[in-house]
């Protein structure tokens, strides 16, 4: 079973929910936790352990100067500006390359071949006996987040139970993360911002047809508007985490409330049961 944890905006506590859920589940079963927030991965901070790195590469063009006639076709074809044909050379901007292979297709001289280039890595560790943590890390200045997400997901493939911590927002990385999941947990806060962004995230998940439910984080007990919205959209409330300085302080330290506060392990176990129910699959 595959579960994604997503939110329309950052900082709603998405990673915290993912980490607590994974930690709770690992008490009783094998679980893989995949950090798909590759621009700012931070799940490893909850589970410090030595990790094994696997580089993530994409293919970029390499031009054979002996064959290149500087005709300019590759530069004209590339929609991403990754090649600029000047009077005496072809200048390559590998970080702009989307690895579509178009330049090598259009080159009339066959002067372009594709070679791998590292854009990030996937870090794998086993911080708890039943927990495998797979973190995708995009290198600074790189733009191809979906490629790193795909690689991280691939590495976790085969585990019976996988949790994906999505990146915030509603753009392509989130779509990539949601690919192939059975259920989605949307984490929100009961503020006007939270609701505004939950609405966007719900739209994305709806468009994929994945069953979803909502976790309200930092609730001050006045969640009427969020509850109304969820009722309207048929989104079940899976869990409510209250706003408290105690919880905030534990989380800021990198602690997990399922470990450090009594009662929360049970609540995260209940959260999992609730997700299984909406997914309608056998975990």
């Amino acid at each position, binding site marked *: 079973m595959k579960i994604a944890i997503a939110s329309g905006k950052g900082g709603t506590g998405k990673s915290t929910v993912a980490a607590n859920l994974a930690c709770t589940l690992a008490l009783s079963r094998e679980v893989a936790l995949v950090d798909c927030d590759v621009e700012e991965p931070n799940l490893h901070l909850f589970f410090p352990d030595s990790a094994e790195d696997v580089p993530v590469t994409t293919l970029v063009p390499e031009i054979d100067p002996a064959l290149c006639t500087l005709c300019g076709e590759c530069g004209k074809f590339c*929609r991403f500006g990754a090649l600029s*044909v000047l009077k005496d050379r072809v200048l390559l901007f590998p970080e702009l390359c989307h690895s579509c292979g178009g330049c090598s297709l259009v080159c009339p001289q066959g002067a372009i071949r594709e070679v791998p280039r590292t854009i990030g890595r996937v870090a794998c560790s086993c911080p708890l006996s039943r927990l495998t943590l797979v973190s995708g890390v995009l290198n600074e200045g790189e733009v191809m987040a979906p490629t790193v997400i795909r690689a991280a997901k691939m590495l976790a493939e085969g585990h019976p139970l996988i949790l994906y911590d999505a990146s915030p927002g509603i753009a392509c990385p989130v779509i990539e993360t949601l690919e192939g999941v059975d259920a989605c947990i949307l984490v929100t806060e009961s503020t006007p911002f939270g609701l505004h962004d939950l609405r966007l995230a719900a739209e994305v998940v709806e468009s994929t047809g994945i069953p979803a439910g909502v976790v309200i984080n930092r609730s001050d007990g006045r969640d009427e508007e969020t509850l109304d919205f969820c009722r309207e959209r048929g989104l079940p409330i899976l869990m409510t985490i209250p706003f408290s300085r105690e919880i905030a302080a534990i989380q800021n330290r990198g602690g997990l409330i399922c470990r450090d506060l009594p009662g929360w392990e049970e609540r995260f176990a209940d959260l999992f049961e609730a997700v299984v129910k909406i997914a309608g699959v056998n975990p």
Partner: protein
Amino acid sequence: MIVGITARAAGTDAPVEQRFGRAPYFVFVDTETGKAESIENPLVDAAGGVGPRAVQMFSEHGATVVITGQVGGNAARALGMGGIKAYAYRGSGSVADALAEYTAGNLQLLPL
């Protein structure tokens, strides 16, 4: 020598455009003959990577000097590697005005 100038419209009377890769027009002036050629920039609404692609167009037109407002990092690298010098024109005048300022030596070289 060919000087390429980013412009908002065609011709040497058009106002200079501050953006480099997304300028609506490029005006190429041959300083020997005074002849000007205006090209509509197909990259105005392109999704990305416009800097290097624009530099390729300047290179194809034989420009060795560019007059514009500002250039991004990738465009700067391509201009530098291509041996094309870029000068900043921050005024609100026309292509002809910018060219006159350049000829008078009043424009500042952009670091590439």
